C-alpha cells in the first residue's frame, strides 16, 4: 500500500517567515507533486518533480520553491510567507507517467 506522509497536519506561521513543508513517499515513485487546494478552485499545481534534483513549475509557482535531494522526499518552501498563501497543501506521488496519483493527508497552513 502506497503511503505518502506530510510533516505537519496543521501549521501556523507569521508573515515573512520561511516555511518548509516536507513530503515523503515509500513506493519508489519517480514523480512527486505539490498542490494547493482552495474552496471552489480545486487543486492547483505548484511544482512537480520527475526525478531527483529535477523540477518543473506548475501553474502557480510564484512565492514557492522546491527541493528534491532524495527520491522519496519532496519539500515545498515558502521563502517569505504571506497571508495569501494560507491554504491546504497537498503532496502526491505517482509511479507511471500517466497513472493515478497517491496523496498525502495535507497540511493546513495559516499565515497570520
Amino acid at each position, binding site marked *: 500500500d502506497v503511503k*505518502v506522509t506530510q510533516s505537519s497536519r496543521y501549521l501556523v506561521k507569521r508573515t515573512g517567515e520561511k516555511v518548509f513543508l516536507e513530503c515523503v513517499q515509500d513506493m519508489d515513485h519517480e*514523480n512527486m507533486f505539490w498542490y494547493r487546494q482552495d474552496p*471552489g478552485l*480545486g*487543486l492547483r499545481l505548484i511544482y512537480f518533480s*520527475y526525478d531527483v534534483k529535477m523540477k518543473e513549475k506548475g501553474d502557480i509557482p510564484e512565492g514557492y520553491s522546491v527541493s528534491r535531494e532524495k527520491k522519496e522526499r519532496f519539500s515545498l518552501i515558502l521563502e517569505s510567507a504571506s497571508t495569501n498563501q494560507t491554504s491546504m497543501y497537498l503532496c502526491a506521488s505517482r509511479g507511471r507517467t*500517466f497513472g493515478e496519483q497517491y*496523496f*498525502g493527508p*495535507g497540511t493546513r497552513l495559516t499565515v497570520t
Partner: protein
Amino acid sequence: AQSVSQHNHHVILSEAASLELGCNYSYGGTVNLFWYVQYPGQHLQLLLKYFSGDPLVKGIKGFEAEFIKSKFSFNLRKPSVQWSDTAEYFCAVNNHTGGFKTIFGAGTRLFVKA
C-alpha cells in the same frame, strides 16, 4: 488552455437517490481520466480511472463512470447513494501530450441527507 469542468459545485441528495456528477474536459487526443474522492477529514483517494478499453468503468463503493469521447465527458454515477458518500469529488484528466501534468476540476461537494 486545457481545462476540466465540473458542472455542479454543490449537490444535496437524500439517501437512496441516484447520483450523476458531470465532468467535461477540453483536451484532444488520447486521455486518461480519473475521479478522486475526499471524505471529511481524510486524504484524497482514487475512486476510479479510465485508461483504455471498455468506456464504462467501475470503481470502489458502487461508483461507475462512463467515458464518452464524442462529448469529451466522464460523468460519475451511483444508483443509490448512502450517507457515507458525503464527500468532495474531483474529476481529473491527463493526456499524452500534456507531459506530467494532471488537470483537476474545481470539485463537487456532495451532501447526503440520512
